[in-house]
C-alpha cells in the first residue's frame, strides 16, 4: 500500500462519516471555534497564504491571494460562493467529499467566510448530485442546531448563513462568473472581466468563488497547520520567484481503463504512472495504456511515454497539456481510437458551449461536425488543418472569447492532433481512400444543437 495517509479522505468509508458527531470526534469544528475566538480575519488570510494553498477547482490560483483582492473596509455584504458545479468530465472528488464528509466542507466554508468577512455563503451544487444535496443540507442543519451557523456564532460578532443553490445541468455554471449569473437567476453567461468577482461579484457585491476541495483544504490547514501542509507536495522552484509551488494533499480522480477506478488522495507531484499502478491497480485487462487525461478533458492527453510526469500544478504543462486542471485522470488503453476520443471531447464542448461568444458557439459545433464526418469515413487531411485553425483561434488565449471554455475545447484538439497526427492521417486515408486528399469545402453531415 502507498505510505501516504489520507487526510481529506480520512473519514471516507468509516461509519456515519457524514454526521457532526463523527466530524467532532475527528477534531472537527474546534479549529474554527479557536480561530473565531483568537484570530482576526486578516490573520486567517495570512494563514492560508503562508500555507501556499492553490485553488483546487482547476486553475490553481493561490487561494489566500484571491481573498486579499477583496476591497478593504467594504461596508458589505461580501459573499462567498462555493463552487460545487463539478462538471469537468472525469472529475468526482467534490461529490465524495460532500456525500461522505460534508462537515469538512462546511467547516472550510465557515473559516473562509470568516477570513473574507462574508456573512452569506452560497454552495452552488450541480443538479446531478441529489445525494450530495441531501447530505450537505443535513450537515448544514446540524451545524445550525449546534450553534455553528446563524447570528453571532459562539458569542462572537461573526454571523454566517450557508445556503444551497441548485444548478440545472450546465457545465458553464462552473465558470465563476457564469456561476454568479446563474445564482442571480439569469442565463449562465460568463461576464467580461474586469471587474473581477472580488470587486463586483454576485448581486454586484465583492465575492469570492472557491471550490469544494479548496474548502476542505482550508479546514485541514486550520486543524493541522501551515507546516504540515507545506511538508507535502512539491516546493516552489527557488530559481523562479513566480512559482508558488504545489503544496498539500490532492484528490486525484482515477477512471477509464484502470482496474480500480476511484478517488485517491496523494501528495501533489505523484506521477501519473505511480497513480495508475500503485492506486489504480494498473491498466485494466492486462492491456497497455495508450494515453491519459491528466486533469479533466480540457487538459489534453499525456502519451504513455509521458506517464512519469509529476501531477503537480507545473508537470502536465511541461508535456503539452494545459495544466493539472481538476486532477481527474482518465486512462485510455491501446484499443481506443484517437478519433473516437477526440470526437467525444468535441461532442462534450459542442453541447456545453453556452452560446454567448460566436467563436466558441460556432467553433465547437463545427469541430464536432468535422469529427463526425471523419468518423463516418469522409475525412480529408485538410480537416486536420481546419481543426487546428479553429483550435488556435477560439478562446481567451487568442482573445476571441469571454471565458476559458473555448480554450478547454481547443486544447485537446491541438494537443491530440499534435501527438497522434500519424494515427489521424492513417485513419483518414484508410477510411476515405477516394477523397482524403480533397480540399474543396464539403457539406456537414447533420446539424447539431447547442445551448
Amino acid at each position: 500500500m502507498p505510505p501516504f495517509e489520507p487526510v481529506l479522505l480520512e473519514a471516507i468509508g468509516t461509519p456515519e462519516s457524514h454526521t457532526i458527531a463523527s466530524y467532532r470526534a475527528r477534531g472537527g469544528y474546534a479549529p474554527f471555534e479557536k480561530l473565531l475566538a483568537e484570530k482576526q480575519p486578516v490573520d486567517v488570510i495570512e494563514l492560508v497564504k503562508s500555507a501556499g494553498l492553490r485553488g483546487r477547482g482547476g486553475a490553481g490560483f493561490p487561494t489566500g491571494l484571491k481573498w486579499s483582492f477583496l476591497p478593504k473596509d467594504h461596508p458589505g455584504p461580501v459573499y462567498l460562493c462555493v463552487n460545487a458545479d463539478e462538471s469537468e468530465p472525469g472529475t468526482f472528488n467534490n461529490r465524495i467529499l460532500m456525500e461522505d464528509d460534508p462537515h469538512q466542507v462546511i467547516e472550510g466554508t465557515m473559516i473562509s467566510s470568516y477570513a473574507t468577512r462574508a456573512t452569506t455563503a452560497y454552495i452552488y451544487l450541480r443538479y446531478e448530485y441529489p445525494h450530495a444535496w441531501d447530505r450537505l443540507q443535513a450537515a448544514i442543519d446540524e451545524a445550525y442546531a449546534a450553534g455553528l451557523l446563524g447570528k453571532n456564532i459562539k458569542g462572537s460578532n461573526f454571523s454566517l448563513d450557508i445556503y444551497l443553490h441548485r444548478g440545472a445541468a450546465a457545465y458553464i455554471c462552473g465558470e465563476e462568473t457564469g456561476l454568479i449569473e446563474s445564482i442571480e437567476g439569469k442565463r449562465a453567461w460568463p461576464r467580461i472581466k474586469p471587474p473581477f468577482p472580488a470587486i463586483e461579484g454576485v448581486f454586484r457585491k465583492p465575492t469570492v468563488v472557491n471550490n469544494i476541495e479548496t474548502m476542505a483544504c482550508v479546514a485541514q490547514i486550520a486543524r493541522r497547520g501551515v507546516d504540515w501542509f507545506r511538508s507535502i507536495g512539491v516546493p516552489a522552484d527557488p530559481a523562479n520567484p513566480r512559482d508558488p509551488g504545489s503544496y498539500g494533499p490532492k484528490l486525484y480522480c482515477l477512471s477509464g481503463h484502470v482496474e480500480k477506478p476511484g478517488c485517491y488522495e496523494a501528495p501533489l507531484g505523484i506521477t501519473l504512472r505511480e497513480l495508475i499502478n500503485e492506486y489504480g491497480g494498473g491498466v485494466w485487462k492486462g492491456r497497455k495504456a495508450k494515453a491519459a487525461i491528466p486533469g479533466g478533458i480540457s487538459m489534453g492527453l499525456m502519451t504513455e511515454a509521458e506517464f512519469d510526469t509529476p501531477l503537480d500544478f507545473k508537470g502536465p504543462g511541461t508535456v503539452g497539456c494545459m495544466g493539472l486542471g481538476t486532477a481527474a485522470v482518465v486512462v485510455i488503453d491501446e484499443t481506443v481510437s484517437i478519433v473516437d476520443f477526440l470526437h467525444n471531447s468535441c461532442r462534450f464542448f459542442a453541447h456545453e458551449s453556452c452560446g454567448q461568444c460566436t467563436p466558441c458557439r460556432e467553433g465547437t459545433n463545427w469541430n464536432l461536425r468535422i469529427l463526425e464526418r471523419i468518423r463516418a469515413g469522409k475525412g480529408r487531411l485538410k480537416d486536420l488543418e481546419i481543426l487546428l485553425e479553429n483550435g488556435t483561434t477560439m478562446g481567451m488565449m487568442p482573445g476571441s472569447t469571454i471565458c476559458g471554455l473555448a480554450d478547454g475545447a481547443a486544447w485537446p484538439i491541438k494537443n491530440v492532433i499534435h501527438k497522434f497526427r500519424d494515427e489521424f492521417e492513417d485513419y483518414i486515408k484508410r477510411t476515405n481512400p477516394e477523397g482524403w486528399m480533397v480540399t474543396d469545402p464539403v457539406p456537414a453531415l447533420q446539424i447539431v444543437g447547442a445551448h
Partner: protein
Amino acid sequence: MTSHALKRLTPEMVAEIEALAPRYPDRRALVLPSLHLVNKALRHVPLDAVVDVANVLGLPPAEVQDTLTFYQFFHQQKPHGTVRAFVCRSISCALRGGDELLEKLCSQYGIEPYGTTDDGSLTIEPAECLGACDFAPCVLANDDLLKNLDPAAAAAALEAVKIRADQQNAQRPQPTTHSPMEDA
C-alpha cells in the same frame, strides 16, 4: 404576491418560494429555485407556469423564460416521464460502454434519446459527465445513481426505479381542488 390569478402554481408552491426569499437580496435569484419547484411538481415547466413564476417574483415573464431556455434541463412542451434517466456519455463512461448503453436502453424501450415512453413512465436523455466516473458506465434515474451498469441488466435497474417512483407518487398528497394541476 400578485393580483394575477395563478394558473399552475398552487398556494403551497408559492409559500415554498416565499420561504426561500430571505436567502437572497434580489428576488430574481429565486428564478432557478422556482423553476426547480415547478419542474418537480409538474415534470415540466409550461408557459403558464413561467408567467406564474414571473408574477410571483415581480419579473417580466420574458426574463424567466430567458433563463429557462438557457438550461435545457427544463422541458416546456410536455412532462418528462415519471422516471427521468440521464445516461452518461462523457469520456469515462464512453470508455466503458456509455454510448452503447444509451443505444441499448433506447431500443429496449422503443424511444429515441430525449424521448418518453407512450405510458409516460420513462424518459431517457443523454447526459454529459454525471461525476460518477468511478462507477462508469452510470445512469442517474430520478435521485438514484445506477452504477457500473451492464447493458443487459440496465433495464431491470430502471424498472426498480420506476416501482419506487410509483410508490412515492401514491404516497404524495393529491392536489387540492383549487389547484388546476391538469393540463388546460
